[in-house]
């Protein structure tokens, strides 16, 4: 019995087998400015994770400073973590990890205005150093004040260098 569908399928499969492997797809356009970073998507994912952790430490430290929870002994850990994130900040922004090529909220300004970006990073590093001092001393009032200063450096950098909705 002649089965047209089966015959057609066999014909197509045979034709495909005889045709050889498909031609390679054309290479994707790489922007002229940024050299591709190996595993750029992984670095962006890592960067977001680190940023998220900074937010969590800020929030947790704030709860302690406000007296929502009685855990002043946890303050140094939060403060040191925030400071450590600042130390690696610049390394988290290599060229090629901006929003033109990656799913990220890092604006092109990070690389177009490097002096201002570095100043924003430096402001964060300075503020977290003060936070560490206050946290290590267990001074809740000083921690409150220092947290506010750190928060303003977060917002200050994001205002210029993070995409807003």
């Amino acid at each position, binding site marked *: 019995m002649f089965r047209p569908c089966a015959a057609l399928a066999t014909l197509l499969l045979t034709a495909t087998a005889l045709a050889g492997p498909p031609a390679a797809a054309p290479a994707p356009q790489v922007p002229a400015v940024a050299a591709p970073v190996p595993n750029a998507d992984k670095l962006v994912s890592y960067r977001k994770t680190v940023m998220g952790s900074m937010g*969590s430490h800020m929030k947790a430290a704030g709860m302690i400073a406000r007296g929502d929870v009685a855990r002043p002994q946890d303050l140094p850990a939060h403060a040191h973590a925030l400071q450590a994130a600042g130390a690696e900040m610049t390394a988290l922004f290599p060229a090629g990890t901006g929003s033109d*090529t990656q799913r*990220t909220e890092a604006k092109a300004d990070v690389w177009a205005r490097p002096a201002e970006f570095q100043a924003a990073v430096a402001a964060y590093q300075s503020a977290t150093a003060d936070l560490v001092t206050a946290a290590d001393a267990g001074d809740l009032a000083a921690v409150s004040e220092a947290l506010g200063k750190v*928060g*303003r450096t977060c917002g200050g950098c994001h*205002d210029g260098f993070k995409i807003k*909705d």
Partner: protein
Amino acid sequence: MITLVAALAFADPPGVAAQGERLAGLAGCVACHTAAGGEPLAGGHRITTRFGTFVGTNITPDVTYGIGSWAFSDFKRAMVEGRSPDGRAYWPAFPYEHFTHLDDPALADLWAWLRVQPPVARRDEPHEPKKGLNTQAAVHLWRLFAFRKGPLPPDEDHPDLSRGAWLAEGPGHCGGCHTPRNGVGVPIQRRALAGNHDPAAPNITPHPTDGIGAWTVDDTLIFLREGMLPDGDYVGGEMARIVTEGTARLSDADQQALAVWMLGQRPVADRPRRAPRTGDR
């Protein structure tokens, strides 16, 4: 005797400068009337909009270049009617459609504070409206659609939200930045507080995904006091200043009123985007 009566009649109303300072912080007077690196309230701050660039004026008590020769009635006319002492309508870069809600005691407090600020002799720069717009007719057309003089109409369904409403719609003028506007600069009230592009201001309606719908009252109070968002990030730029100079200095009761009012507004979803963004969300 007649002079005494006249002096009393024209005396400034009793206002409390310390209260005025708090209102001024919330209203952002210093932010709009101070140039970058300039003397406070002496003017020069440039506000660029699609209708042109408008320059904040000198509102120090300088007699020649500021408002030192004004009477309280001139100040009230400016704030409540949006008109200069000689009757011209102001450009709505000055958000008098919000300040019109201020009552006499609030205006008196602001006036008391303004009068004791240091006078600065700085000449105002002219505004730069877009070609064809530099007419009173253009301003009056906007006023026809966007300006309702006088106190905030009470929300009869939610009388308990009246203080928060006054703070937000009056001196706070949140909608001035956060409510989108149509092509002729009139706020789109059915999308109140749902976010704007120019200036860039997010959706702060209590929409569950597009706004602050997931925030608790505590989250909102922390935001108003510290500028911290529920994920531990912080606001920056203009809003950071509004927090540190404005909402952070309100009384606890006022912060509570404002927080509850914000969470009680109508949730409005974002408009769907026209083109996909590379970035997140």
